[in-house]
């Protein structure tokens, strides 16, 4: 047998060399840069590493992907517009798509020509996604889509979306769902930016009014949308687990320690011990994710233990907000308009609550860990066997 470690090292070295030569020095959100970079990455064989070669992937195994991730952790890749497509929608089409869907959608995605978004969450369906109310009604061979989605990353740039809709309200909630591919440029699709509490609008609300979907737009099987969603969320967990935090995080220990120094606060023992505690928590999480990586390389995938990293990251962010306030000096409260550092810190402080909500709240992560890792009993489900039509959903008024 050829030495797998040796192959991994070679792939990692090749990836590092390519990334060093091709990643733009200045981190950017420019769409043109992103598309050109994605195309070049595909050309070099680093996009869709585990995807089948027949649809433009590299057809390699998981170790090659891990080797690439390891090499990429030292770079800020300008590929954010493709995160959902490459990390979630594409892999789900690889798993569940028809031959036609794979040939039509995967190659342009890999080449950076088409952008994707994922449309699950709704105002009435957050942690309980299966209670969603967007409906798709059959009309001959086609379907008609109506409803509202929220927290949709990239919808304003997206060419296509993977949308989860209710196709049968007369069966229990998990059974009446279907996943579709929706053309985001189709008539009846309206995208509105959604401002979050930081004042920025990195997400969107998406409204569907009489949007027509072709019969060939179903991903997987009609009525088995929940299974498709589970497949996609499995890919999301992997992609969150393998996405490495940007180096310039204003809430990182190194940055906040420098703030404390700049503000003359390191003579204060209370400040020093708070910073030490922050280091300790952030370092523990780094070591945990490094350990999961070493275990994965040895053939033990993390599974639901990935939720531990997600949860701890959110808890650490919340703690770091307090430390940032402590060490930031007056500029933590109000800063000159051209004080970019203070303003980025303020955005990060105001953005911390999202870490505890997005991608599964802390409470949901704790349920996942408790039930799937520790094997504790689930809470009794009152809605599992009831037709969706009879359920309470979202925010109800007291009767």
């Amino acid at each position, binding site marked *: 047998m050829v030495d797998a470690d040796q192959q991994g090292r070679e792939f990692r070295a090749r990836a590092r060399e390519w990334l060093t030569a091709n990643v733009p020095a200045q981190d950017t959100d420019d769409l043109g840069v992103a598309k050109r970079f994605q195309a070049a990455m595909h050309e070099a064989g680093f996009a869709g590493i585990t995807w089948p070669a027949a649809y433009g992937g590299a057809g390699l195994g998981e170790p090659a992907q891990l080797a690439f991730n390891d090499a990429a952790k030292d770079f800020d890749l300008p590929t954010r517009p493709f995160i959902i497509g490459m990390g979630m929608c594409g892999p789900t089409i690889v798993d569940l798509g028809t031959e036609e869907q794979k040939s039509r959608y995967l190659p342009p995605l890999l080449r950076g020509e088409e952008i994707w978004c994922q449309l699950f969450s709704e105002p009435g369906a957050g942690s309980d996604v299966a209670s969603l109310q967007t409906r798709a009604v059959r009309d001959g061979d086609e379907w008609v889509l109506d409803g509202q989605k929220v927290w949709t990353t990239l919808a304003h740039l997206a060419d296509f979306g993977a949308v989860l809709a209710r196709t049968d309200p007369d069966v229990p909630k998990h059974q009446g769902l279907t996943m579709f591919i929706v053309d985001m440029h189709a008539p009846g699709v309206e995208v509105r930016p959604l401002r979050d509490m930081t004042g920025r609008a990195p997400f969107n609300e998406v409204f569907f009014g009489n949007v027509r979907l072709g019969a060939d737009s179903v991903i997987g099987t009609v009525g088995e949308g929940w299974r498709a969603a589970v497949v996609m969320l499995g890919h999301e967990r992997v992609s969150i687990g393998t996405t490495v935090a940007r180096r310039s995080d204003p809430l990182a220990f190194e940055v906040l*320690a420098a703030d*404390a*120094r700049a503000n003359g606060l*390191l003579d204060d*023992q209370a400040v*020093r*011990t708070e*910073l*030490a*505690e922050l*280091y*300790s*928590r952030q*370092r*523990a*999480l780094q*070591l*945990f994710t*490094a*350990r999961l990586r*070493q*275990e994965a390389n*040895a053939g033990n995938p993390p599974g639901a*233990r990935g939720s*531990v990293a997600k*949860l*701890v990251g959110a808890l650490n962010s919340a703690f770091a907000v307090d430390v940032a306030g402590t060490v930031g000096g007056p500029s933590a409260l109000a800063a000159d308009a051209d004080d970019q550092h203070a303003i980025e810190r303020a955005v990060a402080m105001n953005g911390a609550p999202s870490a505890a909500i997005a991608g599964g709240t802390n*409470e949901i992560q*704790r*349920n996942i*860990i*408790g*039930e799937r*890792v*520790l*094997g*504790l*009993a*689930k*809470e*009794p489900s009152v809605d599992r066997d009831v037709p969706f039509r009879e359920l309470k959903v979202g925010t109800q008024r007291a009767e």
Partner: protein
Amino acid sequence: MELVLTHEQEDLRATVRKFLRAESPMTKVRAVVDGERDHDPALWRRLAGELGLVGLTIPEKYDGVGATQVERSVVLEEMGRALLPAPYLSTALAVDTLLALDDEPARAELLPPIAAGELLATVAIAEDSSRWRTTDTRTIATPDPDGWRLTGSKNLVLDGATADVLIVLANSPEGPAFFRVAGIASGLTRTPLVSLDPTRRFARVDLNETPAIRLNATDPVAALERIADLAALGLAAESLGVLAATVEMAVDYAKVRVQFGRYIGSYQAVKHLCVDSYVDYELAVSVLRNAAWAADHDPAEFRLAAANARVSVLPAAFRAAARNIQVHGGIGYTWEHDAHLYYKRAKANELLLGNGVSARVTLADRLGI
């Protein structure tokens, strides 16, 4: 860095766990808790002879096994899990001290009988501040025609009342230095203390013109730092075992205890308590493996990692031990239940090298902030 144990290290863990389950069950721990004895000398001989654990990190030329700190961490984890009431940590720290100093004759004389389980040794570093620093040392060493005489008072000496040899930190005219003192030396008063943790034995050691032999050391201050860091690592390893045991106890109980017609582990309020302890465990394993690996491979990283293990692992074990009592409810608060023994060991380990503030200050110092 290596954060995952090898098959051989996992085998070592399994061997130690099996042995301690069979030979040091809670009924035997309770005999020590109830004050019937300080430890079980027959068990100690088997730990040393049959299992080779007492000489684990002692080099082979002194009749030891020559293993690394990673192996010793694994052993200490299992001893923490079993709350083994034996003078293992104290002896291990004495071994670390002899290896950190530069006294070849003392090593050659003391390490082989330690490895054989025939000689109990401990370190007497802390005084009233309880911190392991030369600047907190008030004990005085004065030269004498036959060697040295020590006068002062050492506090929180682990197994200090029973050790055959004590390695004592004192101030000599040339600066801080380490000395060996026989347990039967004149002018030595060893007073057993009432410990927060009844599975541990601490003593105050008063020295009054006590004869001592100086141990050769080129840099006693650096040696003390290394010894204190290895003590932090050892305590963290034990506490990781405590943490693991309490997570398992809580989860196991939440799976069988029913209230209001449901297993209590199905309630999020209880489930999330168990999860928070498990999360503490996963982080603690990661921090500890890195520190144990760094102890033998990366001195700069070890200074940080050992300080971080104190800040990170020791309080985490106490949190988990407290949550375990909470998950058990009333039964967990009884003397009969073992939960309190883990709670007490976790808190005692947290305090042995100084309080939590001092742990964070040490980490801050090492971070250069």
